[in-house]
């Protein structure tokens, strides 16, 4: 299978500085979560995202460049300047952020991992007590009529 993509542009330093400014806006951090800048969402994690989908590169570069040229980086300004590219750039940077291990650890989220069903607790399995009201109500289906219409 051929995937019809080619990464044809590179994120240069100025563009990346603009993306850092955008990250400050969209991923500022909370009391619990680190900021996007501190985990490098605009750096190597972004590069991984762009390797996974090179079709995002033009939007990311356009938005990063616009942000770098802007004195005050706001989403509203960027939307006016580069339109729909903003959504794609936000998606790319946010995806990058939620790959960073520090973020997953802060969330208490392990990521996509194995949890064999053999390890499921009793609370995680159905029980006949839980099902009892359903069984007690009995059949709810409409049976096949005796003759076709």
């Amino acid at each position, binding site marked *: 299978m051929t995937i019809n993509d080619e990464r044809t542009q590179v994120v240069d330093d100025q563009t990346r500085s603009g993306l850092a400014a955008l990250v400050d806006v969209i991923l500022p951090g909370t009391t619990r979560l680190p900021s996007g800048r501190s985990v490098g969402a605009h750096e190597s994690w972004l590069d991984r995202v762009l390797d996974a989908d090179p079709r995002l590169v033009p939007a990311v570069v356009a938005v990063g460049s616009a942000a770098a040229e802007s004195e005050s980086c706001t989403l509203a300004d960027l939307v006016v300047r580069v339109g729909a590219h903003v959504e794609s750039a936000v998606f790319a940077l946010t995806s990058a952020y939620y790959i960073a291990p520090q973020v997953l650890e802060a969330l208490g989220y392990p990521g996509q991992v194995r949890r064999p069903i053999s390890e499921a607790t009793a609370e995680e399995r159905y029980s006949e007590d839980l099902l009892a009201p*359903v069984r007690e109500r009995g059949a709810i289906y*409409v049976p096949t009529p005796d003759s076709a219409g």
Partner: protein
Amino acid sequence: MTEIGRPADATQTDVLIIGAGPSGATAARILAESGIRVICLEQGGWVRRTDIPSQKPERDVLIASSWSPDPNVRNNSWDYPCDVVDSDMHPLNYNGVGGSTVLWGAEWPRFVPSDFRVKSLYSVADDWPFTYEEIAPYYDLLSEMVGTSGLAGDPALPPGLEHSMPPVPIGRIGRKAAEGMNKLGWHWWPSSLAINTKSHGDRGACARWATCMSGCPEGAKSSFDVAMWPAALAAGATLVTEARVREITVDKSGLANGATWFDVDGKEHHTRASSVIVCGNGIGTPRLLQLSTSNLFPDGLANSSGLVGKRLMMHPYVGVVGVYEEDMESWLGPFGSVLQSLQFAETDLDRGFARGAKWCANPIPGPMELLMRYSDLPLEQRTGAAGQAIVERALGRSFEWGAEIEDLPDENNTVTLSPDMVDGSGIPAPKLNYRLSQDSVRNMQWNLERMHEAHRAAGAIETKEIPYMPAIGWHLLGTARCGDDPATSVVDPYGRSHDVPNLYVFDGSVFVTSSSVNPTPTIVAFAARATEHMLETAGDQKVPA
């Protein structure tokens, strides 16, 4: 292109199958096990477990691009584009060995009996040319062949349904969802799934990755590339991949005599066959039949009824996310679903619409999938501190109730050939004209209100409708409907074309009505029943000279 299976003369066979999805795989196995020479042409290729994005940190990016279920987004060399300019819903599929089951959630529900008799019961649409009882043995057969997990005794279905494996854990989200349904007195049941809950051979048991819809790292999900094709190949079927069929050919007497196809290098081939089975599903099949025009069939092959490509049904889908106080680790799968509900599947005309919906309770695998469910909010409300707050508040503490709506057949909902769009081989792309009916819209709205209610009954502190439309067209049905009357159907109750006695359709195109449940079990049960009938009547089969 690869050719796997018994070395065969690729230019001649007993039965040519077009499409290696679930119906094609089922037919190939049954025929090959009966000693019939089978060649299957599949425009896509094999997916290796090592290629799937499910274990990659970049999974969310990949499923939004090269692994998207939307062929117009995915845009890989195995795909054909779909003209959806005039469609309220966009089709989702996968073109490869196993078909769309490569990316499915493996839900495995049966139709309810009334699904086959909506005209008799409610004067709605049409009846199927067979009953639940007549197809039930084939539901049983396919559950055994594929391996399914679930719980017997569901009161939403007639008794007798068995699974070879116990159900997957419902998880804490399932328990929470069930508690809400119990408060309301509404039906729920552990999901019936084509997912192993016990290891078998080289296929492991479910490990709750919740990445089912981008491929199963354990091999537990019974996509038909792993659940059916190995046996079909072992029995002697031949599978030719990256083989794009351009048309089904006919002889002077109007019998199908094979197909013309392109290999990956663009070289044209023709494979002759005594019989042809089309398994391209609700878009691929009518497209191919309409491409296969000739002097004998100027309006498309097998189309004397005029119904090829008409009555497209796509199961509109709506969902509500509920956020809860407690941590439920709601990223744990399967996804698929952990619970199903048929409380509202049957007709109640007092609701204001004809049929109903099947519900499923689903996990939310991670932060990006969670944020997708808030993507209709203004940018400022889902980015910045607000966006991070959504994830902090809801990750692990939320799950989705989803409702699959039974849409009704409408001859104005069609698949035709696009005048503007072609695939990579220059073949006209399919064009969808599909409009949501007022019946569907009322059905959707009513079920949305009930799902909010179900979440609140379970203790949700926040509920929100999910903006899935338009890219939610997983189930592509009805465009070569079956029936007894050649004037009002394309194929007979066993998938045989009324017009071309050695041409068959076995996929979801044959559906008369859509039910509200996931169609794959019914598709493959139909295919098995039809294949068996094909074998039983082989002595009377008309074939080209």
